[in-house]
């Protein structure tokens, strides 16, 4: 699935999330895999609630991290795309 700025990602079921300082580990019980999120990916993951769009997450990233809007949007789309491909997020179509 193509991730766009209006995509609303949410965590898939069967994952456990463990915070370690400013990073996080996600354990996937389906395949026993472990995924490591750096601080940016952790921030993005924590805002993937199924109702926030990638655009709105990028806006929060811009405000919180004092990041350039274009860079924040690119980071969110890249990270969400990677997390979807790794089975950590699923994307709801906007209503």
């Amino acid at each position: 699935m193509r991730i766009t700025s209006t995509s609303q990602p949410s965590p898939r079921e069967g994952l456990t999330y463990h915070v370690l300082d400013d990073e996080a580990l996600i354990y996937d019980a389906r395949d026993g895999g472990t995924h490591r999120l750096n601080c940016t990916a952790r921030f993005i993951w924590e805002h993937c609630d199924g109702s926030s769009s990638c655009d709105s997450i990028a806006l929060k990233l811009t405000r919180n991290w004092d990041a350039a809007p274009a860079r924040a949007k690119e980071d969110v789309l890249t990270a969400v795309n990677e997390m979807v491909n790794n089975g950590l997020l699923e994307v709801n179509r906007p209503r």
Partner: protein
Amino acid sequence: MTTATSCQLDSPSLRFGASAISPMHIDGQRVSTEWVQLRIGVVNARIESSVSGLAEEYSALYSGYPTLHDNSHVCVRVERGRSRYTMGRRFIVSSNGERMFSVKRIEELLPHVEWALNWEVVRRLDTYLQLHAGVMERNGAGIVFPAAPGSGKTTLCAGLLSRGWRFLSDEFALIDTDGMVQPYPKALCIKEGSFTVMEHLGLPMISPRRYRKGQKGRVAYVNPLAMGVDAIGKACRLRHVVFPMFENGAKPALSSMSRGETGFALSRLSFNLRQKGARGMDILTRTLRGATCHRLVSGNIDATCDLLEELLGKQNHA
């Protein structure tokens, strides 16, 4: 984003005996069985053998370990048999009734008994999160050395043991649900390339026998209690995680790792994280929150041990 799939000592002597269990029958003949039961940290082990002298050899290897009187967690059995493929004579090593190894030469036998014991620990002691790591303790603080084979865990443990650190394991970190590392102080298995290092450290290898262990080639064993009756540590809190990597001739160096990177690396060095699932991950991450994390390039054993003692000294004064 990164992704991976992945003693208390209470007796100076061991107990071993003959024909204490049901008799074995080999090639239609009844043979006597020797056995030894001992407590290796949290592991209660029983070795049964119809090969004369093996139980006695095993008890000599673990001289000073406590006698076990209650039920064992794991039972490794050795008997004479035949190869399934060539019908040649073999020593058969089985554990809890399951055939595990078929060994041709007597010098391969004891290492395979140890190997079978480790497999049984992986399979049966599932209350612990199991990591492939050496574990030492000093002043109540546990330091774990997770690494793949060939990274220098055992030599590092031996070096620290010779300096009065307490030994918990050179291969298994068994972490309970409270985040305590439990001892599984098997005899240290030393590869031939490290024999001279052991002599330098003053660690007596069980002699004169040398053994053979698969790809490791010639090996010898060191009983940690040879360094003193309190050379084996008790359960302790994990305070430091250090990933060692031996580089011949390198100047020893430590570099910090984040706990996230450490947790991710440890998840790949666990024997049973997949079986324990989310509970195992919870143990791992809770345990890491109280630990410092480093990567170690190890070289000369004395300089490497100096560096680790400096690290612990700094932490104690922090």
